[in-house]
Each structure stands twice: as C-alpha cells, then as structure tokens.
C-alpha cells in the first residue's frame, strides 16, 4: 500500500478520466464507457476481455491514435488531442505499440528495413547509420537470421516479434501490446513472457532501466505470475482488479473464464 502511494505521487504515463472508447471503423456503438485509469511508471498491466470487448480500440486510444468518444485521455500529463501535432508525434515516440495478429509490418520492406524505419525517419539516419542498432535489437529478439526476409514469408508469430523489435528500437518508456500471446505456441508464449518480464524488470538494452508494459489478453492464465496489475473489460465497463493477490481473491465470475490455463 505504501508503495502504491509513493508511485501515485509521480505523473502517470497514461491517464484516462471518465473516458469512453468508440471503435475507429464502422457504426458500432460505444465499446467501453467510464474508464478511470492511471498507468504509473514501472507497472505491468494486463487487461483481459472476451472477443469484441474493445481491447484493441482501448489500446489505440491509450496510444493517442484514436480520440476518446467522451472524457479525456492524457499522455505524460498532457491531454492528447489538445496538443500540437509536433508534440503529439514526440509523445508517440515515447510509446511503443505492438499491434495484434501479424503486427502490421510494412510488407514491401524486409524485416531489418521495417525495424530500422522508425529510427531512420526520426533521426534521419542512412541505412548504414542505423545498422548497429538494428542488429542489436534483432539479436535480442532472435530475429537476426530473418533480417532480410519479407514479412509475408514469415509465420505470424515471428512477424509479431518483428513488430515488437520495431516498437522497441526507439526505446519507448511504455510498451503497449495488443494480444501478444494470441495464437502463439508453447515455445513462443514462453519467449514472450520471459522477454516482457525481463523488460519490465530492466534489461541491458535499456541500460537496466525497467519499462512500463500494458498488454491485452483473452485470458489472464499465462500472465498471472508475470504481470503485476490486472483489469477487465466486461459488459462495456472498465473494471480494475488490482494486483496478483486481488486477482486470486476476486469473486468476479468472468475471471473463471479468463483465468483458464493455456496449453
């Protein structure tokens, strides 16, 4: 408890105040309403919900890509859509977003070019300037042997891993992952959980500095020993559960469904 009070004194990285999330496409109505959420530095959140509960739109809104239908979303203490474009772009650099599925890599570029692109665009690097950083991150994610492959020639699991490398190359302070474990086999799942745990505790790539992670999931099962904060999207409402102890103690009926062990 003491610890949580100390953390809340810092500015939250992401804050939602009575926010309502609406889908980007189509005419479906509000997906989630009344979200009050503060993401403090060095936390590790997992947000679970059944299919269609609005997890992807929730993350896109948190990343400042989508406007909330109502309420306010603050990134690093500033309200997202009142910012000037340059400032918003600068804030987005501090947030890494890994999309679900195949990670939305650019199919006309190789894996190495995909990973290098954000760095090259931001720093105006030539391909050669970016080579060193790209090699480092590809080695870290075991992708070095696929560096010159086109994304569509790789399995979706590997593509998503390349998307993680692309999101990490700018060393964001907070990493948002949309269903990273969906459709992964045992080996990939183990790799993701280990890697994210390492990032959250501080790894060499970040100079030992822990980073904040928010992941969405269909179920809490694989995450319960890795993540530290849990929340649920249920019946268009946001429901914060708390830490691991609260997760175990919670009598929420949906938790039985989303706490099933995978594999």
């Amino acid at each position, binding site marked *: 408890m003491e610890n949580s009070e100390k953390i809340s004194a810092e500015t939250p990285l992401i804050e939602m105040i009575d926010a309502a999330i609406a889908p980007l496409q189509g005419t479906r109505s509000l997906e989630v309403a009344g979200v009050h959420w503060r993401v403090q530095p060095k936390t590790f959140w997992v947000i679970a919900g059944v299919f269609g509960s609005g997890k992807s739109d929730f993350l896109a809104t948190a990343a400042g*890509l989508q406007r909330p239908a109502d309420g306010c979303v603050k990134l690093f203490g500033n309200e997202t859509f009142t910012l000037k474009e340059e400032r918003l772009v600068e804030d987005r*650099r501090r947030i890494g977003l890994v999309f679900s599925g195949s990670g939305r890599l650019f*199919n006309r570029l190789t894996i190495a070019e995909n990973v290098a692109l954000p760095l*090259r665009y931001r720093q*105006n690097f030539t391909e050669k300037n970016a080579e060193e950083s790209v090699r480092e991150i590809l080695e870290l994610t075991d992708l070095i042997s696929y560096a010159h492959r086109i994304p569509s020639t790789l399995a979706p699991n590997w593509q998503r891993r390349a998307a993680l490398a692309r999101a990490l190359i700018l060393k964001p302070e907070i990493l948002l992952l949309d269903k990273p474990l969906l459709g992964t086999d045992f080996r990939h799942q183990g790799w993701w959980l280990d890697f994210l745990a390492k990032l959250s505790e501080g790894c060499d790539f970040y100079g030992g500095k822990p980073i904040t992670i928010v992941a969405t999931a269909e179920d809490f099962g694989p995450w319960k020993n890795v993540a530290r904060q849990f929340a649920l999207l249920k019946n268009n409402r946001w429901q914060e559960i708390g830490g691991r102890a609260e997760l175990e103690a919670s009598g929420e009926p949906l938790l039985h469904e989303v706490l099933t062990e995978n594999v």
Partner: protein
Amino acid sequence: MENPAAATPGEDISHRANFSLLPRAYLNFVGRKFFAFTETVYGLAAFGLITLVVMFKKNQHASHVVHPLIRSEVLRAGVRLLPMTSFLGLALGMVVIGQTLFLLNRIGVQNFTGTIMVSVVVRELGPLITALMVLARVGTAIVIELGTSRALGEVEALEALGIDPVHFLVVPRVIGLALSIFSLTVYLIIIALLSGYLFAFLQDVPLYPSDYFSQLASALTWEDFALLALKTSLFGTIIALVTCFQGLAQPLHIEEVSGATTRAVAHSVVACVLLDALFLVVYLVM
C-alpha cells in the same frame, strides 16, 4: 414516402408541367450525385493543401528516408516506362503526320506541318497521352498499394511510430509523378516529332529536314516550354493526389480496394481533361 408531386391515374397534369415532369427520384439522384461530387472535390482540395503544406514544411526532414522513395518513384513512373513511351511516341508522330500531310498536300500548304505538329503533339496530345499512360501503369498501382496498406492498418502503424503518412507515402509519389510525367512528355514529344518526319520521308513527301525543323522552331514559342513544364507537372500532381486520396483518405476494407481503383482512374481522367481544357484557354489567349 409517397411522392406528393406524383400524378394519380387519369389526372390532368398539364397545368403543373413546370415542376412535375421530372420524377422526384431523378432529382434526388442528380442531387445525390452533385453532393457526392462536391464532397469529393472538397476532400481532394483539403488533401492537396495538406500535402502541399507537409511538402514545404518537412522538405529537409528525414531526407535519407524520403529522397530514396522519390528516386524509386521516378524509376517506377519514369525510367521503366521509357519503352512504352517510345512506342507511343513513334505511333503518335506517324499517325498525326499520316493524317495531316495528305490534307495539307491537297490544299498546298505543306509548310504548316511544323505548326500542326506543335499544336497537336507538343501542346495537346503529348502531355495528355503521357499522363494517361502513367495513370494506367502507375496510378492504378498506387491506389492498390495504398488502399491495401490502409485496409491492413499499416497507416495507423506509421502514425503509431511517429511517421507522418502524408510525408512518407504521399509526398514522394506527388514529386515522383510530377517529375516523371514532365520528363516522359519531353521524351515522347521528341520521339513523335522525329517519327513524324520519318513517316513523311518514307512516304516520299518532298519535305527537307531543314524545312521541317525550321517550321517546328518557328511554331514554338518560349511560352510553349513554360506551359508544357507547368501542365505536365500539374498532371503528375493531380494523378498522384487523386490516387493517393482514393487509397488513403478513408478507411477501406480489403474488398473495397478495386472500387477505389476504378474511382481513382475515373476521377483522374476527368481532372486531367478539365485541366487540359483550362490550358486551352491560356493557349487561346496567348
């Protein structure tokens, strides 16, 4: 809803012929088309302005990423189309000379050959044919690749990485197409003028090269060069903007990409022809 203007059977409608002869549904149809048209023009103008602002504001930003993209666009829309342009240039020169020399001979004014070549090839058909060829070969590819990117969510991925999609996807295509259409038109015109003479030579028309080229030179004015550069680069800009707009401006589903492609072709053709008509006015004033 019942149409109040519709006549009941047997009713004499001659007294209200002024407004009721056109069925309401037809007026609705025209109205819908008109609003859709104004909406497209408005969207396109806004998109064009945004692109222009980004182009100037970020002209040195990320030059190591954007300049190679411009070069690859010039390669795709310019260099790779040289063989096709040569073929069209050859055919155009022969067709124009073939059709006109016979007529000119009949009325005995062969010394107008150069003037005709300049009016037809340099001012009108050269730029328009090149623009339509680039639209068919590259414009369609642009809508498909951008529409697919949009449908697969790659544009949101660019935004999430802090990369401006207009700067990264649209600006290189606008500059690349403007440069390509200008260069290809110059190339096509040179080929057409030469092939025109070749045709006359093969037909044993008594026309010396010196005569032909001095006719061309006297028919050309300095405004022709300036207007050719302006017109062709505007064709390139319009084609790139329309195709990028159709591919990017609204969220597409993958099955809508084919519709967006045909729409982009139709809109580009109309826009290019309208621009051509506008230039005709300039030529007439000249």
